[in-house]
Structures are given as C-alpha cells and as structure tokens.
C-alpha cells in the first residue's frame, strides 16, 4: 500500500522520469541504463562532452526516438502526449526552420499550433527578434536563427522547456542576453532542461547539474558539487637530480601522479582536486620545483577524472566488503 501511494505521488510531481532507458545505434550504446528524474521548477543542465549521449537523451525525452528498453515519462504520460498537450517547448540543435517565409510568419505559425499560445508580437519581443520580423528565414545569421528557434520553443505557455546547446553560434553578448531571457522563464516556475558542454554555463545558470558520460549518469548534484568533482587541476614541474617518489605520492588532494625522466632530472605530473593545497605542501617538502605549471583540466579530462574516482570508490567498497 505504501509503495502504491509513493508511486502515485512521484508520478504527479515529476516532470520527467527516465527508468533504465537504453538506446543503441548499431553497436554503440548512446544511452546506457539511464535513470533520472526532474522536478517542477528546476533549472537543470545536462552536461557532457560531445558524444556523451546528451542529444539522444533529449530526443528520447521529446519522443523523437523510441527507447530500446526502459520507460520515458513526461508529466506522467508518454512524450508525444505531453507535446500534444502543449506542456513541452523545445529547441533542438538539429531543428530546421521553414524557409521562404518571414520570421514573423513562422512565429505566428508556432503560436497558432500551440494549445495555450502567447501573442506572436510578445513572443517576438521576448526573443529579441521583433526588429527582424519581416526578414526571410533563410537570410538569418546563425545567432538570429537560434533566437528564432528559441521563439518557437516559447510560443505558448509550456511547463517544461528543453534546449539543446542553445547558445551555439552566439557571441558573448548574445549569450548573456539569451540566458537572462531564459532565467525569466525559469522564474515563472517553469522547469528548464538544457544540454551544454560548457561547465561554466551549467555553473552560472543551473540549480542542478546532471553529468552524462558515455550514455550514463556520472554525477547528479548542484553546480558547486560538480565543480568540486570536475574541478581537478593539473600540476606539473621539473625537479633536478633523483628524488624520492614516496613523499610526492603522499601530497594532499593528489588524485594521480606520473614521474618521467627528462634530461638530468625528472618531470612530475600531478592531478589534484585542490591544487593550491597540493602546491603549498610541495614546497613544504623542501624541493625546488622548476617550470611549475598549474592548469585546469578540460571537461573531457575532468570526466575521466570523475569516472576514475567513482571506479576507485567502487573498487574500494568491493574490497572492503570481502
């Protein structure tokens, strides 16, 4: 009885629910046993490198593709039903526009198709494309086309807005303006899900970040938590002569280390989750590191770092249980 009430409650409060969803293309598993849930009013970033399965995940969510196994529910129904009910507005990278018509005509069409439409002039103004309403769609710049897609996604009163790398092709100013508009949408209580491969973008906009890597959910938390996990830095330096490796390995916050010969000395490469503390302790060893460099990891490397960390934890847990 208890389980039944819980199920009913979660069905009504979850905006999106994936359960063990798998989707393959030939031998490639684009989405691999993905389980996730979005709650009303959240602004969620779907973060991952190219090929992580972000677009496939969004396609499954929007009913553009069918899962090989598992279930996808949007507002407690199938994706298509949710779209027909006008509850989802979406902007895809691959979403084309009808050409030979004007921006104004196209936005008007999107409004006419929505069950709870806004006025076309409002939609144009909000997407900052009112001044190009008379321009033909095929004569737009990349950034302008992106704003038209945004207008199509917000033509009516939808409860969930899905955006696939929405700021692609926009310059910095346009990007900032775009996210300001997006924030207004979120402030009105809408759930917003956007895919991005910029950690900074996820950090600045999202309340919650889902990290996707090789079709699996690698991490789920606040941007700060993810940053702490993915915020690893790389420290490298040269040391003269031969050195003891043991004290280096004992440096705090160190996640990995490689020592290689170079000339008369050694080059040491370290990955650290807190580079400041690691470097401070390094000087404490009484060595004189030369050519010291501290650099952030790219997102791809950060994911590898997180994966390795998770695998290490799993292995440790397994070992402990034996």
């Amino acid at each position, binding site marked *: 009885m208890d389980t039944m009430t819980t199920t009913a409650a979660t069905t009504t409060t979850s905006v999106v629910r994936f359960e063990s969803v798998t989707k393959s293309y030939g031998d490639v598993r684009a989405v691999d046993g993905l389980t996730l849930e979005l709650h009303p009013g959240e602004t969620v970033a779907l973060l991952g490198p190219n090929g992580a399965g972000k677009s496939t995940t969004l396609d499954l969510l*929007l009913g*553009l593709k069918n899962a090989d196994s598992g279930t996808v529910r949007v507002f407690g129904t199938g994706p298509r039903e949710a*779209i027909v009910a006008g509850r*989802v507005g979406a902007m895809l990278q691959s*979403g084309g526009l*009808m050409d030979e018509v004007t921006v104004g*005509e196209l936005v008007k069409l999107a409004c006419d*198709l929505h069950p709870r439409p806004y006025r076309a002039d409002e939609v144009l103004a909000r997407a900052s494309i009112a001044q190009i309403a008379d321009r033909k769609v095929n004569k737009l710049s990349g950034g302008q086309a992106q704003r038209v*897609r945004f207008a199509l996604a917000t033509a009516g009163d939808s409860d969930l807005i899905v955006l696939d790398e929405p700021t692609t092709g926009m310059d910095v100013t346009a990007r900032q303006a775009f996210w300001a508009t997006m924030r207004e949408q979120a402030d009105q209580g809408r759930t917003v899900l956007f895919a991005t491969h910029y950690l900074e973008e996820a950090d600045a906009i999202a309340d919650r970040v889902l990290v996707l890597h090789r079709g699996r959910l690698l991490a789920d938390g606040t941007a700060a938590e993810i940053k702490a996990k993915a915020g690893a830095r790389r420290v490298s330096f040269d040391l003269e002569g031969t050195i003891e490796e043991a004290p280096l390995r004992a440096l705090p916050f160190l996640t990995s280390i490689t020592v290689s010969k170079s000339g008369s000395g050694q080059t040491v490469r370290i990955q650290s989750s807190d580079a400041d503390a690691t470097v401070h302790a390094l000087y404490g060893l009484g060595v004189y590191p030369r050519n010291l460099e501290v650099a952030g990891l790219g997102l791809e490397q950060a994911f590898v770092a997180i994966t390795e960390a998770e695998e290490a934890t799993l292995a440790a847990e397994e070992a402990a249980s034996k």
Partner: protein
Amino acid sequence: MNSLIKLEITRALRNRKFLFFSVIYPSALFLLIAGSADDHTKVPGTGLTMPTFFMVSMASFGALTAVLMGNSERIAKERESGWVRQLRLTPLPGRGYVFAKTASAAVISLPSIVIVFVVAAAVKNVRLDVWQWFALTGVIWAGSLVFAALGVAIGYLASGDAVRPITMIVYFGLSMLGGLWMPTTTFPDWLQSIAKWLPTHAYAALGQAIELGNAPHAKDIAILAVSFALFAGGAAWLYRKDTLKA
C-alpha cells in the same frame, strides 16, 4: 493545421519559379504544340481534334507538375534541414504536414488547369458543353491527388542530391510515356502496350472520355485507384520509417 496550410500556400505563391513552371509553362507548351495545328484534324485513334486532345494533356501535365514537384523536392529538403523534426515538437499530427503540402500544391494546380482551358478556348476555339468544362476541371484536379501521393513518397524516399534527378526521371518518364506530350498512338506497338497501363495515361484518358461526352472508362479509374493506393501506401510506409530514424 489550417495555419500551416495557409503559410504553405503563401509561400508557394511567392515562389516565382515554381509558379512559372506549374501555372504558365503548361499553357505555353499547349500553344507551342497545338498552336499551329488546324482545328479539325483528328488525333488518330482518339476521335479528338489536336487542340482538344492537347488541352486535356497539358492541363493534366500542369496539375502533375504542381503536385509532384511541390511535394517531392520540398519534403526531401525540409527533412534534411530538420524542419520536419521541428514540427514534430509541436502538437501538429505527423500527417498534418503531408496534408498541408498536398493542399497547397492543389491550390496551385487549379489555376494551371483553368489557364490551359482558357487559352485553348480563346486561342484555339475549343468548344465544349458547360458540364464538360466543370467535369474536366473536377476530374483533372481530383486525379492529381494520385501524383501528389507519389510526390510525398519520393520526398520521403530520396534525400539531398538524389531527389531532383529521381523526381525528373519520374516526371518526364510518366509525362512522355503516358502520352501527355504526344499521343501514345504514335508510339511503336510494344511501347503502346506499356504506356496504356501508366497512371498518367489513365489520367489523361479520363479527360479525353469527358471531351467525347462519355463517362471515364472503368479501367482507367481502376488504374488510378490502384496507383493511388500504391503511392499513398508507399508514402505512409516511408514516412513511418523516416519518423523512427529521425
């Protein structure tokens, strides 16, 4: 769906090249072929004069151009650009897109039929009863649906660079072999026996029967019905395949 149909029509009417080829070109071709023919010589094996024969041929050809070209190239192009995908994110049902395309093509094909009739009546003195004019318009307009379905099927079958050549081959092949440009009675026997089974041949035959004051032959109606079932079935199958792939 109405707003999509409206926008499709607006856009088709704006496209001058498309308008020229589907609305003006058939009439021009009529004048070119039938212009110098005298009003009394009969086309062998038909019982129709040159101008009356070619009036129906060119009206059918014009309607065919509008619906076939209108559907195939645009659908292929919009599948590729992702517009079809974008539309799937709206409450519009999938068939609504195909329906809107076909409806807008039909709006263009009507004037192309009527203009050929007006030119034929004015320049070549083609005279028919009032009911015949209406029946001709209705039959040719309705029959064009067969080729609209073929256009949809090609639009979902081919993509990118392939769609234009495929459309052209089908378009010219069906027009020529079906006898829209010259009577099939001028063909060698073996070709005649193929031509009479083509939907374009049956299509023009509907109009010719009405011009002679008869009801269309059951065989021609059957050929068109079977063709329509094949093309529409193929289009539906290809559409579903494309949707799953998307």
